[in-house]
């Protein structure tokens, strides 16, 4: 337990102060609420830079701030710490969250300008940001769970931000409840670890040293449950469907959620727990398979969607699948690298979609409404193109390097994984280029081009440009990233290695990307009608994809089945036990009171009898005691 660097404390203190000041300002100057938030973002960003420097020169730092012990419970050695852990992993996450999150804060100032709930938006938004920062620097599972839940709560508030829309309320509820299902896994894993280790506090360093000594069967459960938690937060099969529906919130929320805060939490959890998960028998393989399946399935769905934000949402699910696949293949470094680059290019894409929606004065836009925007919105077009190239994985954009690392690992593994990697590369290029062509080129015969689209203001254009620059360049710092991640890494070092440029995977991946881009060009430009007509010609296939291959309904029936069973049991319990107790109490007391009221005859003589009898009894008792 070393001395806490000031910048580490500032990462949590600055947002708390900003929230307090903002909450106070909100009561009388709601239009000024964003200033403390922006200041806090600046402080956190500078602190993150300083911390990354500290870690890369010094090493990991563990700080114990407060220890809560349950000494009142006899025989308990239960301790819950509130500490901060700073190592390469949290420093990288801090950099990502503070950079992307800060820029999106700036963007929101422009985007939400006309919204009447401007102040409320920034309070929620900064709370979201703060929760994620707390999650990243948590130094034990209990604390991490606390912030994990705060992230879920903040996402609920923000997805349902426009609460007057019933669809937004429903989406918020769905996101929250789906995440609760995942949280149950996290909670169970924490309980198992507590039971095994005997101490609730065990910070990560201590816990991971125990790793190999834990009973492998329990360890497998822990690994599985942690992955279960990650499937909800990071939108993996089967709990992914809340994410596309979470588009109901304002676009900056989607950008923050997809790039920096919410969905990265699950991948972060997996990376953080890698020393345990890597020992859990069968779990890494499961993660890889689920990740690959999610990536392919959601990419196929993304190809068919027409709402801009929805395409991007399915693309996020797909990319999270790629990251999970990378982790499952043991390439944690590659997965984290992809998390970083994905944060930049996906934030850019979302903010571009926000620009377009803003230009059309709508909360979201459909590809049929946006067409030929290239000349009207040049900045957005440039940023979108860079981010799309990065997403597709074209050399030398950032996404290429990170995706190449994972696809390379998949090719090394061979078999189904290699095929999956190539299919994902093809599909992601296909959907993103389809979107690019549909939105910025054209317009086509079936598209209604917007009337008077205008480029976004400076406060919106600057963050987008900076993020796009990140989407272009972040990939070049991969050596530095590995060096940073190695600091304080508790697991096997080989998991962090990010392979350099290799010709086989470059050729395999890039040819798939070019193929995808080519197919997208053909589908949108050469035969533009096909995109709308194929759904009519094969309604069965369209319906299958629209229903997410039945996953949604399967999950829904599972949930409804569980609810039915629970309701039956609960109903039986309620009608028999609870109602029985409640309704039985009255008659029982009434019968008893009837017996007693017979004694109250109203006759003075009777009372005196009882009085004398009582006095005699007391006297007898007193004499006996003598």
């Amino acid at each position: 337990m070393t001395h806490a660097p000031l910048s580490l404390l500032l990462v949590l203190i600055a947002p708390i102060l900003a929230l307090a000041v903002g909450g106070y300002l909100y009561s009388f100057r709601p239009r000024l609420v964003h200033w403390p938030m922006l200041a806090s973002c600046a402080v956190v960003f500078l602190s993150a830079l300083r911390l990354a420097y500290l870690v890369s020169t010094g090493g990991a730092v563990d700080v114990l701030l407060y220890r809560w012990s349950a000494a009142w419970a006899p025989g308990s050695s239960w301790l819950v710490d509130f500490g901060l852990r700073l190592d390469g992993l949290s420093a990288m996450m801090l950099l990502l969250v503070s950079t992307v999150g800060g820029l999106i804060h700036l963007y929101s100032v422009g985007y939400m300008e006309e919204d009447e709930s401007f102040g409320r938006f920034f309070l929620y938004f900064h709370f979201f940001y703060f929760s994620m920062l707390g999650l990243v620097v948590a130094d034990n599972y209990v604390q991490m769970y606390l912030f994990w839940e705060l992230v879920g709560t903040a996402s609920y508030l923000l997805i349902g931000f426009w609460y007057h829309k019933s669809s937004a309320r429903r989406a918020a509820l769905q996101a929250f409840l789906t995440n609760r299902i995942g949280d149950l896994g996290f909670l169970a894993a924490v309980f198992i670890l507590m039971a095994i280790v005997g101490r609730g506090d065990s910070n990560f360093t201590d816990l991971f040293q125990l790793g190999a000594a834990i009973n492998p069967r329990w360890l497998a459960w822990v690994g599985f449950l942690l992955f279960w938690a990650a499937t909800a937060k990071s939108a993996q099969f089967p709990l992914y469907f809340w994410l596309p529906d979470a588009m109901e919130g304002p676009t900056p929320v989607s950008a923050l959620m997809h790039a920096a805060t919410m969905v990265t939490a699950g991948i972060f959890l997996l990376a953080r727990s890698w020393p345990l998960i890597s020992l859990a028998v069968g779990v890494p393989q499961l993660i890889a398979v689920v990740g690959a399946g999610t990536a392919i399935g959601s990419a196929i769905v993304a190809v068919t969607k027409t709402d801009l934000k929805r395409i991007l949402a399915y693309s996020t699910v797909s990319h999270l699948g790629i990251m999970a696949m990378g982790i499952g293949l043991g390439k944690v470094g590659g997965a984290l690298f992809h998390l970083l680059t994905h944060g930049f290019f996906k934030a850019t894409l979302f903010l571009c979609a926000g620009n377009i929606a803003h230009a059309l004065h709508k909360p979201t836009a459909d590809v049929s409404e946006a067409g030929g925007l290239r000349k009207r919105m040049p900045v957005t077009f440039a940023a979108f193109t860079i981010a799309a190239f990065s997403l597709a994985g074209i050399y030398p954009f950032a996404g290429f390097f990170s995706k190449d690392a994972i696809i390379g690992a998949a090719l090394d593994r061979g078999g189904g994984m290699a095929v999956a990697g190539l299919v994902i590369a093809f599909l992601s290029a296909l959907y993103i280029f389809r979107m690019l062509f549909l939105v910025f080129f054209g317009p086509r015969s079936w598209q209604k081009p917007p009337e008077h689209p205008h480029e976004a203001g400076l406060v919106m254009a600057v963050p987008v440009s900076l993020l796009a620059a990140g989407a272009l360049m972040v990939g070049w710092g991969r050596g530095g990233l590995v060096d940073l991640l190695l600091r304080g890494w508790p697991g096997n070092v080989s998991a962090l290695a990010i392979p350099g440029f290799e010709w086989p995977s470059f050729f395999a991946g890039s040819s798939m990307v070019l193929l995808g881009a080519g197919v997208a060009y053909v589908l949108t430009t050469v035969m533009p009608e096909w995109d709308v007509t194929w759904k009519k010609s094969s309604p069965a296939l369209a319906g299958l994809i629209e229903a997410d291959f039945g996953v949604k309904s399967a999950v829904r029936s599972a949930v409804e089945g569980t609810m039915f069973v629970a309701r039956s049991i609960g109903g039986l319990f309620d009608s028999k036990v609870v109602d029985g107790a409640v309704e039985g109490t009255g008659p029982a007391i009434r019968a008893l009171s009837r017996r007693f009221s017979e004694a109250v005859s109203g006759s003075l003589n009777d009372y005196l009898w009882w009085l004398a009898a009582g006095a005699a009894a007391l006297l007898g008792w007193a004499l006996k005691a003598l």
Partner: protein
Amino acid sequence: MTLWAWGVSLFLFFSGLMIVVLRRQLLLMLLGLELMITGANIILVYYGGLRSDADILGAALLILAIAAGEAVVGLALILRAYNLGLEPEAPALRELKG
């Protein structure tokens, strides 16, 4: 002498108790109460004299005073019941019946 004192005292006490419990007329019940108090007082005075203890005799006097007060309150209650047109007997006062 002790036997006599106890005899008279207990006789008065239990006759009083029997009257209080068994008779219905409020006046008689009040009389019974007075008898019980007197019975208890007799044994008190006897032992006070035997031990030459002024405290006990003082207590006996206090009990006499209380008995007088109690008679006043009791008679007032009976008078009140009579004025209200109720029979001055216990069964007439049944308002506390459960």
